[in-house]
């Protein structure tokens, strides 16, 4: 007994120190989010109509995560750790209180000193937000109490049985998702009879679910997860162990269902969502292309936007009646072969000088090429061909026989995009396991070994560049027809980065991963200039993209939907360790115990 008592008291001191440190960190994060204006901006959108705004949801999230982390134990394989107990809840609460106190101190500070001259977002609105609109005293108490409660909740998740925990987490996630995709759902139900009733019941006035709808969604998802937990994983595992032929068939069926869905969707959606879908489609197209360069061949190309620009400018010059130098006024489809040829040439031109550079130099040099392309398009030097800063206007619509696809109609543009996305996805999928695909993957894993094994790395790299370039140039050509006029400033470095983020978040080298990345990121956050489903995110879009990039690299470098091979590659040590442990156990050597 005494041993247990002394151990837990020692643990108490250790845990509390950890709680305080985590709490300080959480408070710092909360203050930072307030200072950059994120909390106030997100307050403009509700998750659950009158009671919970996105701003408060983020603040609560910070405390919950702090409590969770303060109580978390490092789980090492083969090392036993103390089971979680009620004491952990206390340390979570400690973290929460400390975090709340930091925020409280911040409120007092900004009440006492006016720092708006320097920190533009530290406004009275922020004070109102942090004090819940009810005065300083209430605000300070609320921060401390709220911190304690939510910190404790975060820590308490460790005590719950896994099944309850998973169900609760997915219930919360789905409440957010249903709230976020309000525009999509409203568009879909619009055509039904009960649309008005449904809308009023599910969505409140200031965006977000109504309380009964939130309860319903929460309970429903909780029960569904409770009942079917593990089935999805089991299903995926079953696909994994299927024979090659059958797995391929399943994949094809899933893909066909998704394509059919994609074909039906735009017909029922409104203009805004359709417009957003075209942006998603453009990024998906570029993402699939960059996936070949970065994901399969392992070449980090940061100037990918250059190829997109080449596609757009080739189309513009060849089709627009107002293109400065010469205007053959081809139709869009007649210009397409030239787009492909020029993109391939650009791919060779960029690819050849960098072939022998090491990976990181290559990244910066391609970045340089991307900037060079943009500056040349912008410069007076080539004004005679590309129109300089004025760009090229009056790019005609796409005509296929009797059909005309007007750039102003996002629905039609989406079908054009879908056509190209399907082609490009099919090509990528066929390439993956082809001879050249395997050569790329071998090169990504170890270039010298690949070369020794007879892979012609020069051809393989150039092919990756060229194919990636052609895929991006399709995107550029459609972009030109969609916008109707192009300017050099549409081709910023930012575009390359957004494409890179979505393939990294989705999973490098995995086609479904790229699709998920494009839909989730571009769909929710929006493209470089256009808003996504959450317009409140516009200001913080790139901050979030940057954070995601760092987070993914630190915690899950293989992405959300990774390709199996890539996962093995990145967690090689763990796999080797597991293999070693397995081998030890098979041989019957018990692990040595101290």
């Amino acid at each position, binding site marked *: 007994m005494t041993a247990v008592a002394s151990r837990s008291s020692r643990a108490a001191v250790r845990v509390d120190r950890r709680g305080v440190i985590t709490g300080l960190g959480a408070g710092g994060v909360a203050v930072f989010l307030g200072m950059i204006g994120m909390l106030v901006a997100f307050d403009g959108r509700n998750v659950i109509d009158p009671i919970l705004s996105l701003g408060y949801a983020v603040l609560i999230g910070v405390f919950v995560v702090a409590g969770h982390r303060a109580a978390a134990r490092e789980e090492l394989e083969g090392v036993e750790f103390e089971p979680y107990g009620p004491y952990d809840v206390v340390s979570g609460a400690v973290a929460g209180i400390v975090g709340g106190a930091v925020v409280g101190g911040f409120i007092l500070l900004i009440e006492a000193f006016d720092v708006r001259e320097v920190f533009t977002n530290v406004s009275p609105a922020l004070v109102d937000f942090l004090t819940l609109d009810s005065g300083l005293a209430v605000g300070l108490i609320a921060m401390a109490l709220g911190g304690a409660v939510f910190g404790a909740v975060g820590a308490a998740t460790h005590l719950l049985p896994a099944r309850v925990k998973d169900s609760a987490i997915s219930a919360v996630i789905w409440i957010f998702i249903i709230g976020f995709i309000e525009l999509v759902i409203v568009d879909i139900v619009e055509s039904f009879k009960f649309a008005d009733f449904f809308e009023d019941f599910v969505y409140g006035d200031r965006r977000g679910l109504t309380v009964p709808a939130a309860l319903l969604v929460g309970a429903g998802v909780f029960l569904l997860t409770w009942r079917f937990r593990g089935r999805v994983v089991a299903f995926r595992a079953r696909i994994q162990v299927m024979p090659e032929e059958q797995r391929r068939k399943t994949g094809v069926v899933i893909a066909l269902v998704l394509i059919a869905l994609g074909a039906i969707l735009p017909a029922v959606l409104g203009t805004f969502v359709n417009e957003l879908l075209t942006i998603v489609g453009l990024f998906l197209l570029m993402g699939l292309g960059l996936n070949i360069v970065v994901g399969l061949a392992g070449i980090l190309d940061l100037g990918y936007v250059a190829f997109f620009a080449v596609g757009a400018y080739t189309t513009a010059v060849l089709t627009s009646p107002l293109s400065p130098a010469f205007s053959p006024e081809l139709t869009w489809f007649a210009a397409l072969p030239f787009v492909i040829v020029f993109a391939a040439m650009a791919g060779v031109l960029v690819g050849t000088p960098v072939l022998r550079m090491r990976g990181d130099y290559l990244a*910066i040099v391609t970045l340089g090429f991307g900037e*060079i392309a943009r500056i040349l398009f912008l*410069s007076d030097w080539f004004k005679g061909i590309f129109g300089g800063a004025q760009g090229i206007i009056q790019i005609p619509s796409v005509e296929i026989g009797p059909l005309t696809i007007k750039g102003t109609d996002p629905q039609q543009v989406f079908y054009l995009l879908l056509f190209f996305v399907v082609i490009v996805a099919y090509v990528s999928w066929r390439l993956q396991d082809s001879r050249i695909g395997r050569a790329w993957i071998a090169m990504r894993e170890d270039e010298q070994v690949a070369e020794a094994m007879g892979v012609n790395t*020069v051809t393989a790299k150039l092919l990756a560049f060229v194919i990636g370039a052609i895929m991006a140039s399709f995107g550029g050509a459609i972009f030109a027809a969609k916008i109707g006029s192009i300017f050099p400033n549409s081709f910023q470095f930012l575009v390359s*980065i957004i494409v*890179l983020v979505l393939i990294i978040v989705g999973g490098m080298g995995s086609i479904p991963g790229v699709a998920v990345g494009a839909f989730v990121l571009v769909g929710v956050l929006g493209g470089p200039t256009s808003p996504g489903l959450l317009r409140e995110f516009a200001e913080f879009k790139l901050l979030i993209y940057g954070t995601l990039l*760092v987070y993914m690299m630190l915690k899950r470098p293989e992405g959300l939907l990774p390709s199996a091979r890539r996962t093995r590659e990145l967690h090689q040590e763990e796999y080797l360790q597991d293999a070693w442990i397995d081998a030890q156990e098979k041989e019957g050597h018990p692990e040595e115990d101290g």
Partner: protein
Amino acid sequence: MTTTTRRRPRTRLRFGFVDSFLWAVRIGAVAIIGVGLIGSIADTLSGEGISGGAWRDLVITGLSQGSMYGLIALGYSMVYGVLGFINFAHGEVFTAGAIVGFFVADALAEAGMWTDLPILAISIVMLTSITTATLVAVLVERIAYKPLRGAPRLIPLITSIGMSFFLQYAIRGLFGSNIKSYPQRPTALQGSVDLFGVPIGKAQLAVIVVAAVSMVSLYLFINRTKTGRAMRAVAEDKEIAALMGINVNRTIVTTFAVGGAMAGVAGTLWGLLFRQVFFFTGFLPGVKAFTAAVLGGIGNIVGAYLGGISLGLFESVGPNLILAPLGVPAVSQLKDVVAFTALVLVLIFKPTGLFGERLAVEDRA
């Protein structure tokens, strides 16, 4: 990691497409530079081109601009030397220093100190700028790079790209997106002085001198102090350095701190010279400073500084010297093109940089 650029017995035997292409680039580059040079000499002699005075101004602009590139490049070079990856977020460390420096300078100008005690005021600005930049650099290292020790080279690079965007937009969120103007330069830094018969702007001269002094102190720090020796040892071989009793992690943090401090100095100098800063200020100088580090030979401290100066000169003089005689209009738009082309050409002609690389064995590839 990639096929080596120096030891390539196989490709030496086979003269393939790539070699022909690279040779075409080499010959083309030499031809263009040669023709341009001859053209501009002819233009200047015949009095058609820009005058001698204008050339001198371009050189001075290039030197002062290049001094700042050099200071930023030191951070890239040292980090690459020690950890073997490109710290893409270093340009934003510079921005952070410049922007926080602005607020201090602004406050001092309001208090009247900026004009009354310019030296003291600028020193205070520089100190805050250095402190901020150092703090940011160390924090970034702690949060983003420390967990990635030993990861494949591209992973910390991608992380640092993410960090760069995070910092840019964090700075934008904190301080707003408007352009901030440093107060008018104090009278001591206005006008120009004659140096050996050459008139040179006082501000430019100050920038060049401060950068040179910082460079020399850094050189002495690296070569004469115990910490500096530890840094060189860690750059050479981390494991053996650890065996010799060097605290590798602390040395890495020191490297980031010193690099950040240099970026902070550059930030203040930027504010003094160009006066305008905003959240995106550091991006291009950051990329170019990396170019400068490669130009001078990565890992080589003096090389980074000289590379910065060379790059500054290339991009201010280059467009007029080489492109203008070839009939290219509005060459000043093309200075970034010249800078990036210089990077590509150096990597094609002499991948180890103008002054030689100093890298650990494992990083040389």
